């Protein structure tokens, strides 16, 4: 029965309580937690992990890859505003030496579904491998222009 399956999935908490508690306790501010809250944090983390895995897989599939790699995860994080807010800076750096500079539009970003401002995307890709040279050329041109978002449509 579908209900049973859901129950099995919903009540199981994979992560060991002790470990989750230890991680929480590393924050000296966090002192006392009810067992219910601990359970919920544990389950939330599981849900988050599943969410992130799914988003990363989508990116990999888009790029026609069968293996999810770090860059796919990074892209997935970037695409989801709430996750990006707390996670982007903390992801392990890419294996390549050139780490992209943090775009200035982090905290003050309006909560909309718009893609990153054209300016930020261009700067971001500037530090990446020039997969598409056409874009690289565009960037070179755009660099000379004042930093005003240009309507690319």
């Amino acid at each position, binding site marked *: 029965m579908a209900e049973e399956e859901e129950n099995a999935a919903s009540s199981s908490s994979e992560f060991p309580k002790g470990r989750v*508690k230890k991680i929480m306790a590393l*924050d000296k501010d966090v002192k006392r937690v009810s*067992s*219910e809250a601990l359970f*919920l944090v544990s389950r939330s983390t599981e849900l988050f992990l599943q969410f992130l895995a799914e988003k990363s897989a989508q990116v990999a599939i888009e790029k026609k890859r069968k293996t999810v790699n770090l860059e*796919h995860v990074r892209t997935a994080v970037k695409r989801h505003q709430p996750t990006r807010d707390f996670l982007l800076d903390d992801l*392990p750096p890419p294996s390549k030496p050139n780490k992209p500079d943090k775009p200035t539009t982090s905290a003050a970003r309006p909560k909309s579904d718009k893609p990153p401002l054209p300016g930020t995307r261009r700067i971001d890709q500037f530090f990446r491998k020039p997969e598409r040279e056409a874009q690289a050329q565009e960037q070179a041109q755009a660099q000379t222009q004042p930093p005003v978002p240009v309507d690319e449509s």
Partner: protein
Amino acid sequence: MAAEAEELPRTIVRRVVKDKLSRCSEDGDITVSKDSLLAFSESARIFIHYLSATANDICKESKRQIINAEDVFKALEETEFPEFIRPLKASLEEFRKKNAGKKAAAVSKEKENVAKKKRKLEGESPDKEEGSDKAEGSEKDEGSDKDEGGDDHMD
């Protein structure tokens, strides 16, 4: 930061991720690289910090000392993961039912144990007391289950 010392078990992170991935792709053949697994593990850890810190703030605002379930739900809203709330509420119901069952069972078991021991002591010589007196004394506590009031502390 000593944060690196505590990690989630990698095998579990791997299992959660792979289970989800096998449901994502049509062929079920999508895999995950080592460095992305590390990223998943780190992300989960950071999420725990982020969620607890937010829940903690909410708890403090209400002038309470112990982070409870409501604080976590509010924290999920604040961190913009409201889609988790419904499934979590269902999970919480399960959790509560399980615990209620456990508690009742524990209490009745405790009573049974006490009765058994009394009978034993009456039947045997006092030499055999060993540490059983201590165990009997614990019956006064409300259930040996620490989770009873729903309170746990980190101190």
